[in-house]
């Protein structure tokens, strides 16, 4: 019946309006007036408007049972509510009707359930309703429903200032046992700094919702609330939006408005893995503001400080950077990415020591002091902790001294397999160690581990040492480029730094030599070793470190005779870069008198290697006098290899033999006068750029005009 009535409304207005169109302004005015009148008339007849009027005017004490009028109007309101939502005024009227209990409590629940706002909820209405909550005799279940409704539409309330003004009034409902969880949630949403002093009121009980509210008070007034809150706070407030959720979403969807109801999902972190543990050294402490403040305020009481807990965004962090107060426990800075950003700015030595103490304590207790047998059972937690630590280090681009101290001790106890990637990751962050200490702290334990561990450990260690060297060199280049004064960590001088780098490179050379022997020149290990030398050969040009160290023969020859072409190609690239670095160093040496001096020994080694490479790959003079590899004539004859001297040139080299065969098959049909040259061109098109650069820089060889090439050679002699 109500539906029929509402449908008849619009058709009336359509018939009357087009009567006087397209006349003067006056008549337009008139037409507007008429339209207005019509609209009013329609509204007056609109059953929804009538229904609202009924609910606002109904006399208190009107009977409910058998009241058809009430039923009709309520159905009308419900219909509108579930289809389009109620406009603010309607919300006010209906809420007032329900909470004032003008017709008793029975229609109250029904009305509350259909209070679906179309846009916003007027604050006054909510405030009035809260007042009714205090006066009326509303059944407790209805009161709960009302608060649930407020929580659901909280973000749609147009303003919150008046609600905050009656904070104390709302607070008084906390004593109501059934209402308490919901009131706590509401208070949680309303709490601002000034409301913190409500914490003085003594609470009983340890329910999660209370704790949650208290934890908020603690943020604002740490000195008033003494309470230990379990750090992985579970989501204490449940969602109470179930009676309205689907209707609200439908209405919002229909209206196209996306009023976010973010209060429906709380921001508190919900940690699922709150397993019980006996030892919890690895748990990052919760971020709390310092309680122990009075002692330090003597000096800086005039400055207003902002506790870090109250900062929630990067913008806020930037704004308050100069007056942020350090938290009670520095370890808590590792807990979130926002605080990590702040950590980057902490210059205070005491603060860093506090952080280092905690970090060192956690690492020592977990990995070194492990009192209970089988403490590594919780390696999942250890893994997560180390991963977090690694990402922190990565973010900070700096190490922590406590990690370093821990590692020096731990390396002596480590089996090389427990959490290997993480431990190696931590190790690669160790800053420059003086050359006098590096042997004792790093090399001795690492050597033992290296020679007794698997191939994968060896590869991992090579990668780790490469990363370590890269980080040292990056530090050097930052210092070198930015203020030229020679200041390295731990007051190491430039020459001290050079010594350390040299020690490291020589150490890796020794490891690599023996490692390749032990593992039968495994190509995976060789690849990691060549990675390292790719860093080493460019130290001068890329990082400005005046130091050139050549690889030992134990690395050079296995790479040169490797069975895979990639290794040979990389070796060729490394030799090419060595040459570029050495040439540029030599040039600088001539330019500046006080420039560094590269020893003749280094040049000699380099030249020797180049001669060997060229003779071997190019000239087919493998076993000639003066070469690195010498074998007796009779031994070579015994091997029954015909033409042994060219068995490692670019055609016969085991790494390239398949290319030679392939090339031969491709060009068999065509007759070529200069097959060697075409073969080289072919090799270079296969992506062997290192080889190409090596050949181009060391052999005077014209790709097109040259003839045969094989006797046209000139190594760059110094």
């Amino acid at each position: 019946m109500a539906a029929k009535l509402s449908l008849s409304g619009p058709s009336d207005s359509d018939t009357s309006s087009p009567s006087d169109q397209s006349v003067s302004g006056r008549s337009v005015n008139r037409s507007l007036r008429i339209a207005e009148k019509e609209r009013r008339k329609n509204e007056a007849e609109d059953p929804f408007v009538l229904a609202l009027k009924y609910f606002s005017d109904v006399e208190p004490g009107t009977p409910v049972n058998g009241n058809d009028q009430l039923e009709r109007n309520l159905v009308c309101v419900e219909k509108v509510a579930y289809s389009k939502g109620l406009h603010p005024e309607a919300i006010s009227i209906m809420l007032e009707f329900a909470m004032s209990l003008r017709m008793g409590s029975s229609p109250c629940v029904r009305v509350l359930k259909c209070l679906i706002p179309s846009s916003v909820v007027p604050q006054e209405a909510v405030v009035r309703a809260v007042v009714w909550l205090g006066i009326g005799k509303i059944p407790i279940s209805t009161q709960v429903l009302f608060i649930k409704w407020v929580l659901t539409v909280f973000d749609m309330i147009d303003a919150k200032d008046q609600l905050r003004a009656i904070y104390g009034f709302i607070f008084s409902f906390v004593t109501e046992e059934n209402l308490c969880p919901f009131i706590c949630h509401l208070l949680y949403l309303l709490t601002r700094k000034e409301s913190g002093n409500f914490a003085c009121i003594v609470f009983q009980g340890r329910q999660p919702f209370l704790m949650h509210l208290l934890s908020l008070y603690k943020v604002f007034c740490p000195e008033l609330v003494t309470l230990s809150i379990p750090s992985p706070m579970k989501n204490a407030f449940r969602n109470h939006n179930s009676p309205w959720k689907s209707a609200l979403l439908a209405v919002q969807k229909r209206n196209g408005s996306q009023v976010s109801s973010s209060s429906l999902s709380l921001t508190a972190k919900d940690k699922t893995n709150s397993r019980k543990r006996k030892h919890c050294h690895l748990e990052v402490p919760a971020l709390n503001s310092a309680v122990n403040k009075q002692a330090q305020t003597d000096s800086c009481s005039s400055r207003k400080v902002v506790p870090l807990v109250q900062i929630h965004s990067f913008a806020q962090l930037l704004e308050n950077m100069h007056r942020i107060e350090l938290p009670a426990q520095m370890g808590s800075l590792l807990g979130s990415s926002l605080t990590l950003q702040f950590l980057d700015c902490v210059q205070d030595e005491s603060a860093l020591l506090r952080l280092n103490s905690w970090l060192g304590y956690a690492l020592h207790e977990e990995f070194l002091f492990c009192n209970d047998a089988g403490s590594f059972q919780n390696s999942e937690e250890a893994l997560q902790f180390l991963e977090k630590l690694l990402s922190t280090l990565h973010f900070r681009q700096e190490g922590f001294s406590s990690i370093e101290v821990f590692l020096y001790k731990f390396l002596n106890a480590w089996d090389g397999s427990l959490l290997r990637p993480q431990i190696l990751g931590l190790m690669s962050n160790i800053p420059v160690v003086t050359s006098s200490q590096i042997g004792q702290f790093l090399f001795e334990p690492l050597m033992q581990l290296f020679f007794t561990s698997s191939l994968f450990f060896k590869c991992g260690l090579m990668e780790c040492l490469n990363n370590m060297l890269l980080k040292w060199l990056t530090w050097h280049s930052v210092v070198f480029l930015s203020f030229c004064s020679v200041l390295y960590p731990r007051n190491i001088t430039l020459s001290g730094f050079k010594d350390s780098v040299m020690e490291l490179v020589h150490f890796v050379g020794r490891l690599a030599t023996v490692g390749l022997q032990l593992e039968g020149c495994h190509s995976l290990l060789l690849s990691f070793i060549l990675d390292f030398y790719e860093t080493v050969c460019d130290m001068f040009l890329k990082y400005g470190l005046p130091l050139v160290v050549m690889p030992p023969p134990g690395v050079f020859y296995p790479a040169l005779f490797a069975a895979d072409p990639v290794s040979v190609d990389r070796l060729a690239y490394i030799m090419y870069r060595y040459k570029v670095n050495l040439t540029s160093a030599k040039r600088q040496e001539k330019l500046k008198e006080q420039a560094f001096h590269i020893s003749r020994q280094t040049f000699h080694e380099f030249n020797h290697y180049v001669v060997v490479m060229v003779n071997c790959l190019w000239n087919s003079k493998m076993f000639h006098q003066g070469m690195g590899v010498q074998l007796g004539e009779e031994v070579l004859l015994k091997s029954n290899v015909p033409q042994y001297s060219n068995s490692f040139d670019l055609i016969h080299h085991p790494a390239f033999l398949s290319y030679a065969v392939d090339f031969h098959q491709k060009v068999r049909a065509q007759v070529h006068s200069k097959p060697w040259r075409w073969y080289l061109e072919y090799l270079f098109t296969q992506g062997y750029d290192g080889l190409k650069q090596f050949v181009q820089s060391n052999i005077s060889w014209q790709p097109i005009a040259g003839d045969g090439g094989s006797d046209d050679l000139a190594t760059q002699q110094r």
Partner: protein
Amino acid sequence: MEQKQTSVVKTPRNSDGAQRSSYRQSYRSYVGAVSRLGLTSALTARRLNTSRRAPRAHNITDKVSPEHLAVLVKKEWQLSYVTPLFQFRHTQLKRYSQQLSAFIAAERQGVAVEVEEPQHSFKASFSVVHGMAEAEEDAETILIQVHSKHHFSRRDDPEKCVWSGWLACINGSPEYIRSLPKDFICLPLFGSSGGDPLTSSVKSWFQQTFDCCFGSLEINHTSLQWLGSLWTNCQPESNIQHLKMIWAVPVVPPLQITYTVNPQDAWELWTCVRKDAQVEKEGEEEEEEEEEGIIDIEEVNMFMQELKSHFYRHFKLDLSAGNLVQVSTALGSAKTSGRIKISNSRYMISTLTLLTECALLKMPV
């Protein structure tokens, strides 16, 4: 040369001055972070002292008040090590007492409470034990006691002490203490006696208030041997009554051997070991006069070796296979689990010196 240097100072005329300073700042923080690493070698190479002064009967009763001594002596303490306390003030003890009381009440009853409220069922009190500190760098010992008020007790009933603990640093390594920034107080040794819940409450209050960490402190084999020898050395001045050692032998089922030595026998063996060592020393160096009271680790090892071989002669059982887990005399007792009891205050200082050293060995930074 001089001119060159001034020209270097003038160089920053290009626009990247700001960038430079930021580099420098971040660089400074780096240097700051590692500046303490001068200690690295000391940290990783730290070992228990190999020689220490023989305990002398301290007239500690003159320096320390008898009430405090009465609390410290005759209780068994569970030991922990504590990292340096940040912004701990010996002058703020009253405030700490209030805060700790409130904290315990909050933890106990699950309530948030006002700090100033006087009506807590647990009352914590902090006090300084004057006269314990030995070296100049040592911070004064702190005593913490928690008293409980019963709900039904009358107003004038005496409060019952339900928990007590102390923080001490006796003859702590001066290099380590001096290396700390001045905001830190080093009290590395923590002893507690009382219920576990209260212990953990006190610990977490300290952690949150002074940003420190607590870890358990075991008394290892070597330290126990030291204690046995040091106590035996006191025999002539104060009767140790017995030297009792408990050895755990790793067999199935686990075997515990209690080995009790007559005090006079122990003393005679000890003097023999001492004499031998002294003679040997004098052979090496002439001027040994002033080092009369110094005991060396070798003497301790020899003493223990003799005790073990005596045991072997009688029972054909080599105790070297086992571990010393407990040592006790009339002066005190120590267990490997980190429990210690000091029965005679006269020799308390040398015991605490050893334990402070053990605690400092555990420091992570």
